[in-house]
């Protein structure tokens, strides 16, 4: 995360109450979001959660129904799209098929009335940055998907917009190329010091790239925070489920005094710290545990445990995961400790965890 002197620096981008409806359909509930200069923020969420809508309103391609947008403290809500100092990278690149790679990259410079010499120089320089020096005279359709994506990035970064918006720019690429391009995007972000708002529905990508993640669901923001914050302190069941693998015990909550609470269901009752508990609705809640937080063996002081039979053993490369089925049929994923011998299917195992690590969400 880039740290800004928050006392005198205005946020780069400030969104207040920005919302969009299409007739009856709410594409985005009024939303608040503040992005600092140089920050890389990812909008993450399932399909239809309003990510594209939010991004397009920031870019000016879609008019908001409510709310305002401030860039560097200036109100830009009504600025037409071509006057905003922003760059947008589309999912399917949107390269101009009738222009060569060089002409595509020169386009934004020409629109800004840059002199011919400077245009030529900047295009050459930017092509070199994305390792496409040889390709300036080719047409987009003569390039591979990854190369086209690099051209799209070059076309966007060439005019040094202060804010770059990307809508699932890697959606059409295969896994290897995606990872390579993620690296490339990260590098461009660092080199130009640009503020980036990035849309994806791939949680891994969001974790790799972002300074902060803005988790979206059902046309609103679920949670905003650093990847670590969201992983270790999910604010809702949705957040817990969407990022990383999680085990969830849903049950009734009661106060056990002494800063502790108890979540009880048919598998037993589990303690957690009051301070790790978000706001609750009508006494029901879920206790979130990450697989790596559970350790083999029975509970000691200040710990909880569960016992179940091994019903699946999943090999995932770096790790082996065990699935335990508890008495009432619920399942729990745990990480197998590579130092111990692998259990067999049907073995009964007990795992424990310190009560400090569990998070309780509604």
């Amino acid at each position, binding site marked *: 995360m880039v740290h800004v002197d928050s006392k005198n620096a205005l946020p780069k981008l400030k969104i207040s109450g920005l919302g969009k409806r299409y007739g009856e359909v709410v594409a985005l509930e009024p939303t608040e979001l503040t992005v600092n200069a140089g920050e890389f923020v990812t909008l993450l969420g399932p399909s239809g959660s309003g990510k594209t809508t939010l991004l397009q309103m920031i*870019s*000016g*391609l879609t008019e908001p129904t409510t709310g305002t947008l401030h860039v560097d403290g200036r109100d830009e809500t009504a600025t*037409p*799209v*071509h*006057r*905003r100092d*922003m*760059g*947008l990278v*589309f999912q*399917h690149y*949107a390269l*101009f*098929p*009738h*222009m*060569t790679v060089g*002409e595509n990259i020169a*386009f*934004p410079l*020409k*629109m*800004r009335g840059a002199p011919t010499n400077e245009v030529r120089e900047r295009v050459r320089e930017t092509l070199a940055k994305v390792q496409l020096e040889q390709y300036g*005279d*080719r*047409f*987009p*359709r*003569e390039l591979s998907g990854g190369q086209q994506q690099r051209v799209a990035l070059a*076309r*966007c970064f060439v*005019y040094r917009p202060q804010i770059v*918006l990307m809508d699932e720019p890697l959606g059409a690429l295969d896994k290897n190329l995606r990872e390579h391009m993620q690296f490339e995007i990260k590098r461009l972000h660092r080199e130009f010091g640009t503020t980036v708002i990035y849309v994806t529905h791939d949680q891994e990508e969001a974790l790799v790239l972002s300074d902060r993640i803005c988790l979206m669901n059902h046309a609103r923001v679920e949670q905003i925070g650093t990847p670590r914050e969201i992983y270790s302190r999910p604010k809702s069941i949705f957040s817990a489920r969407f990022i990383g693998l999680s085990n969830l015990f849903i049950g009734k909550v009661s106060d056990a005094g002494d800063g502790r609470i108890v979540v009880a269901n048919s598998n037993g009752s589990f303690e957690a710290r009051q301070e790790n508990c978000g706001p609750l609705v009508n006494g029901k809640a879920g206790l979130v545990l990450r697989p790596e937080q559970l350790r083999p063996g029975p509970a000691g002081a200040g710990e909880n445990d569960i016992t179940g039979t091994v019903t699946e053993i999943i090999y995932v490369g770096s790790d082996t995961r065990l699935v335990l089925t508890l008495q009432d049929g619920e399942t729990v994923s745990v990480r197998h400790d590579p130092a111990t011998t692998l259990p067999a299917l049907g073995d009964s195992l007990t795992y424990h965890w310190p009560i400090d690590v569990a998070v309780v969400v509604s």
Partner: protein
Amino acid sequence: MTAAGLSASPRTFRLRANALWLAAPAIAFLVVFFLIPVGRLLFLSIQGDTGSLTAEHYDRLLHTEVYWRILIITFRIAGLTAFFSLLLGYPLAYWLSQLKEQRRNQMLLLVLVPFWTSYLVKAFAWMLLLGNQGVLNRLLGGAGITDSPLPLMYNEFGVIVGMVHAMMPLAVLTMMPVMSGIDTRLSQAAGTLGANGAHRFWMVYFPLSIPGMAAGGLLTFITSLGFFIVPAFLGGRQQTMLAQLIIIQVQELVNWAFAGVLATMLLVSALIACWIYNHLFGLASLSAGSSTADKTSSAWTRRFGFALLEKLAWITSAVTGRFSQGGRGKILPGYVALIVFFLVAPTLMVIPIAFTSSDFLEFPPPGYSTRWFSLYFNSPIWISATVRSFGVAFATAIAATAIGGLAALAIARSRSRFGGVVFAFMLAPMIVPRIVIAVGLFYLFAQMGLVATNLGLVIGHTVLSIPFTFVAIAAVLKGYDWRLDQAAASLGAGRFQVLRLITVPLIRGGVISAFLFAFVTSFDELTIAIFVSGGLKSTLPKQMWDDMILQLNPTLAAVSVVVLVIVTAILLVADRLRR
């Protein structure tokens, strides 16, 4: 079922390899009734009296100034028609392409109805509008704007107005699909990169729409080259076009050899236009998006083109910057309304005239009566012509749909490298000017005794309709997912059941529109009918043509209304059934 599954792969393979045979009826039909007659006609032009080869007929062409003049006039009128059709039609096509799909299909009727409206009815309407005693001159005189009638007709102005009115729907219908296929995200992308409206249009949208313009220009140019209805009625002696000359050579002078010469000129011009379209059209390479084709010259044209477009963009933004935001938004809809009025109003004006009580073609009519309709309905000549047109159109629609549909199926299912050749051959009757096909068939039918027979008409109309049915059915087959057939087969459906329960229901819409388009093509057809039908065996358009040449009368207005109603009804039915 497992046995069927196992045997399926070799059988589908054989079916694929052999699918091109489904095009055999179409190929045979077009060879006999299109390729041979046209070839024969061209050959006549180099045949002397004794059957030996000779260049004497071309000699005559070269040494007669009047023919040169007609050739030049033909090119000039066709060129101007194509130019104005594109220029005036482009904003309409653009407007249509920007609409949401459902609304676009509704609004498209505003172009489709004029497109399918009989050329004769349109020419008739313009005669009523533009004549010395016509509607426009009376309005102008009545308002005291002019003292004496303006010469609006029997000159180039009249011909161009009539031709543009006749051809613009074709131009719009050719451009529109290309325009609506332009990815809207490209314009958006240009916007985010800093391009204002004018730059987005000139530098991104316009170059991408050029293939549509080129195709629209080509089709209107070629169709205009062989056109005779509008110049015959709205032009003077100075506007005689090549096709009219061919008709005179065949019908009055019976000079086949010279008709062959003129037909060759027409055909060669059309082919040159196609060739230019394909190879030399420098602007088309703007959007071709390939750097492999001859690099230096096309790169130079491209650069020049882009520089020009950029200038246009700066000029446009400077000019439109003077208008208010709201004022700018009204220009296009206003223009579209005006053009649609131009396309639709003249033919609509025929309707009140058909109900006139007067013996003359006055507008507005002095009183109301249905006497001209009863005259039509009680006239054995008109009724028999109408009935004949219906019968011929029905037979044509069945034949053309079957033959063209099988050929489309062949193309869709075959991977043969001859597919492209067959495809081009199926479309050839659209490229070769109708008058050439008509005269060629007339010569053939004269030898076969098919002149003045319904069979001859059906054959001729089927030749003209096959490109339409082929394209309509090929279009639905292209979007057809053949895996559905395989899925149905794997679920236990036999081959016939697959056809009946899956294929036919899914392509029904395309087949029905193919049928109706063939029907309307035949119902409206005049060129072949002029030669092949006649006397007591006239079709409705032929009867109208004869009457219009003799004298304009209110019965013609009544007949026009009947034709208008029938064609519009068919179009509406086609539109409904396609959904």
